[in-house]
């Protein structure tokens, strides 16, 4: 099982183009979004873009790749081994996490070095950790999408999922500008609790237990769905 995870990580690292864009995209977006902003909003966007960038990388990477692997029959071949469903999902999440970590690091680096964001050391570490750990949830969602969608539809489905979730999660517009009812909905979707973890740390508080709980539930549901679909996968002959 460890060999599979190692191999999946290796494949991601070898795919330089994908790595390059996934890592650069969030930091570029962060620089653009904060170009005309007041200094007070910069830390908010920094955390939001850590979340958004990590989310993008793991969702897009996993869903499309998996749909293609199913299409080519690799998953079928893999199902003829003793590998349990959770082993497959774990390997895919590990591979995705390999991409999300540097993308988060780069946004933080730009925030600190270029945009002059100042936080305590524990806060930097906290934002990094919550952004990274939270991305696992979306990596699992990516695996699930890779199973629901076909090789042709995986990309658009993943795009809709991450644009929708990012928008509703207040990653592009400040969450505080949302009307009350929308905030209630957003709090129950995965992206807002995800970004809220980092934002709590950034404003000097501990992450909210409710947000952690929502994310854990989503993570488990996505991973279980993905593992179940891996075992089942009857859609593709």
């Amino acid at each position, binding site marked *: 099982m460890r*060999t*599979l995870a190692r191999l999946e990580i290796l*494949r991601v690292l070898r795919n330089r183009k994908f790595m390059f864009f996934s890592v650069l995209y969030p930091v570029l977006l962060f620089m653009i979004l904060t170009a005309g902003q007041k200094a007070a909003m910069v830390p908010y966007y920094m955390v939001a873009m850590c979340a958004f960038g990590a989310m993008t990388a793991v969702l897009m990477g996993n869903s499309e790749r998996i749909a293609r692997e199913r299409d080519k*029959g*690799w998953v079928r071949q893999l*199902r*003829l*081994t*003793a590998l349990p469903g959770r082993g497959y999902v774990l390997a895919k999440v590990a591979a995705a996490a390999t991409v999300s970590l540097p993308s988060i690091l780069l946004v933080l680096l730009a925030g600190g070095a270029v945009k002059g964001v100042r936080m305590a050391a524990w806060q930097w570490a906290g934002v990094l950790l919550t952004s990274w750990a939270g991305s696992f949830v979306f990596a699992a969602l990516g695996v699930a999408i890779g199973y629901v969608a076909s090789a042709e539809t995986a990309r658009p489905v993943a795009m809709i999922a991450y644009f929708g979730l990012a928008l509703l999660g207040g990653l592009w517009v400040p969450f505080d500008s949302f009307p009350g009812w929308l905030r209630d909905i957003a709090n129950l979707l995965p992206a807002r609790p995800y970004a809220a973890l980092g934002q709590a740390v950034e404003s000097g508080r501990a992450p909210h237990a409710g947000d952690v709980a929502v994310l854990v539930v989503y993570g488990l549901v996505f991973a279980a769905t993905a593992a179940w679909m891996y075992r089942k996968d009857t859609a593709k002959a």
Partner: protein
Amino acid sequence: MTATVFTHVSKSFGQVRAVDDLSLTLHPGETVALLGPNGAGKSTTLDLLLGLRTPDSGTVEVFGTTPRRAIAEGRVGAVLQSGGLMEEVTVRELVRLACDLHPRAHPVAEVMAAAGLESVADRKVDKLSGGQEQRVRFALATAGASDLLILDEPTTGMDVSARQAFWEAMRGQVKQGRTVLFATHYLEEADAVADRVLVLQGGRLVADGTAAEIKARAGVRRIVFDLDTPPEESALRALPRVTDVEITGRTVRIRSTDADATVHAVYAAGLYPRHLEVAGLGLEQAFLAITESSEKEKEVAAR
């Protein structure tokens, strides 16, 4: 302990009955060929055996348990036509993965050698030829000491020498006591390698026996001889057990369901056949005869 038991297994896709009330048993140590025209249900049968699909009705048992369980225990290895390979990794990396995942794995180097992959060990999987890819699949299927090997058209895409090398490797597996079930389009492979031949048609088992039995089941033997004087066709047709007579010049070709009786009657009729030859049909002709006749039976039944 049986290797595989299908009990009244059926599987449909929409209106199409891919497998229709199939019952069969594979015994340990057998090398079994699965034949059938396209769409006969070979691939679906293998999918059911491997737990990739679940039957609509009936049960599939592999080594006394479910297919999934047997695979998890490392008792089954398989090469599927529809099985793809992981991309962006080298051959060696992929084989190492297969060995790592197998509960009763062989050493990586041994598996690579048996599949003849050493020369391409460091090549990327997506850069292989069709035949090399097929050898990688074979390596994945034989990464450990599985008791049952399932091979779906294993030599597709291989040239003649690669095919021979493949079956050489396969015989090695059989010698170690493995049970082998392979689907093939090449009837000469079934004839040369298998000690049991299953013929599927329309999702049903229409023949089950040794290659010789299948040939005999097709029933007919060919009798060929020359006569000094041009023979009379009606006299030849009147001989016992004759199903068909063909005369070219002085050469007579007879198809008979009982060659012994027919030949005896040829002499009894006072004829003096020269260069007499009696031969069975090839497996290919036997296969065609069986599938055609079962097709006809079906048509009659449908009327």
